[in-house]
């Protein structure tokens, strides 16, 4: 289904969502950052950014979440399932790269056994994406097979067609239902071919050359050389929309507690360390290799999908300016040798 949405109607769109019982999450300016955050009012929405600082991931895999609660009394333990974590919401104004990260991660959370915390949230949330009309030098979606107006993962895709008008394309049934629910705020589709204002993101490398090289170069000097500047923090993995590694810890008092799932990252020294002190990934080079391998080889082999959507967030936040697309360009060059 195609429609148009005028910027002036954002207000009634957001009010409409509220009336229908949706929690609305949208890009919001907060000092230096633009973050996907809960909004109450359409005028909180920020639209002039390239990409939000946080990824869409945290609405499906929160930085910390309860997976079990329990009470302990003498030697009797009672368990309680967490409730209310999946809230009917709309994420409005996320980017196509972010939206695409969801079907990519569906694969691991549905693999073999189903992680209900992910799946139930996925069901509860409708994604209304806005195509990118600008980009920066860190963006490389086109290099990993995406596009600034890619539809995968979105339920509805909005694309700017004039200064204050967006083309509305429904992608899924869920999206179609949402548009129908709020029909009055949308206008008829444009007559003729609309002028889609979509950024032109240049390709930085040929993804086809990456995996074959990785297959043969588990041992290579580039891993150490490139990662000398890495400080071993988790910023890259935490802002990444597709990094999904987590830790499970218990937090409790004497009589009750929670089992909690927290973001964890492969760049931390402690990530793989055994209790004995032995660490299979003992150097930052090995950990950096794991990050690249996981994204561009292991995940591809296992789930037939690259675990990177080219959003460039990791490169933007890296304290030491480790640039992932630069790494991939180096690999491409090496592969051509």
């Amino acid at each position, binding site marked *: 289904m195609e429609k148009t949405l005028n910027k002036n109607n954002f207000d009634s769109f957001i009010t409409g969502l509220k009336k229908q019982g949706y929690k609305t999450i949208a890009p919001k300016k907060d000092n230096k950052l633009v973050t996907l955050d809960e909004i109450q009012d359409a005028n909180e929405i920020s639209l002039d950014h390239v990409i939000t600082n946080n990824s869409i991931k945290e609405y499906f895999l929160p930085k*910390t*979440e309860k997976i079990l*609660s329990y009470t302990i009394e003498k030697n009797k333990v009672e368990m309680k399932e*967490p409730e209310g*974590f999946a809230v009917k919401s709309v994420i409005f104004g996320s980017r196509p790269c972010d939206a695409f990260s969801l079907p990519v991660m569906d694969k691991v959370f549905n693999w073999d056994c189903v992680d209900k915390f992910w799946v139930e949230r996925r069901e509860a949330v409708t994604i209304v994406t806005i195509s990118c009309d600008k980009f920066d030098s860190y963006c490389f979606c086109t290099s990993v097979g995406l596009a600034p107006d890619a539809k995968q993962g979105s339920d509805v895709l909005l694309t700017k067609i004039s200064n204050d008008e967006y083309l509305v394309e429904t992608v899924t049934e869920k999206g179609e239902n949402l548009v129908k629910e709020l029909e009055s705020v949308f206008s008829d589709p444009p007559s003729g071919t609309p002028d889609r204002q979509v950024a032109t993101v240049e390709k930085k490398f040929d993804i086809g050359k990456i995996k074959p090289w990785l297959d043969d170069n588990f041992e290579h000097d580039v891993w150490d050389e490139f990662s000398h500047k890495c400080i071993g923090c988790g910023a890259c993995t935490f802002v990444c929309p597709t990094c999904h590694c987590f830790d499970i810890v218990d937090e409790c008092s004497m009589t009750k507690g*929670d089992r*909690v799932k927290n973001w964890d990252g492969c760049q931390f020294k402690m990530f793989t360390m055994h209790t004995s002190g032995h660490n299979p990934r003992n150097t930052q080079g090995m950990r950096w290799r794991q990050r690249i391998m996981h994204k561009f080889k292991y995940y591809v082999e296992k789930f037939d999908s690259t675990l990177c959507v080219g959003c460039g967030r990791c490169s933007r936040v890296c304290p030491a300016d480790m640039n992932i697309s630069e790494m991939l360009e180096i690999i491409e060059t090496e592969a051509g040798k």
Partner: protein
Amino acid sequence: MSKAEAKPENQFEPKIIAFLCNWCTYAGADLAGTGRKEYQANVRIIKLPCTGGIDPLFLIKAFERGADGILVSGCHPGDCHYNSGNYHARRRWNVFRPLLEFCGINPDRIQFSWISAAEGGKWVETINGIVDAVRELGPFESYQKLNTIGPETSGGAADASSETG
């Protein structure tokens, strides 16, 4: 004590955690006890070898677990059983206290004192003082609110206020 008798109904009873050095203040508190001196029963004592061994994290942990107020007390300067433990402690609190204040924690919730083994009376006074002060401030709800994880509001992990006693 007359105060305890005149206790109005539903009066808020703050939980005070006292970190005491073994050699002076703990002995002082003991003296107050053997001297049958009464003081408000809101204090839970944690005895440590020396104030010099009290990590600021102890204080944070106490607040996490439901304390409304904290007392840190040890030997008077010059009287430390380990010579200089209390001097080091004093340096620590000199910077840590303003840090907490800077973060919006009322400094009256964390009090410091020197009470010797002979000062049973000062112990009674100090405890009554901090209990009254913290009662005035009310429960440390803003900190205890931090204990809720996720959307479920009932029963967060360290919703421990019911069990510090």
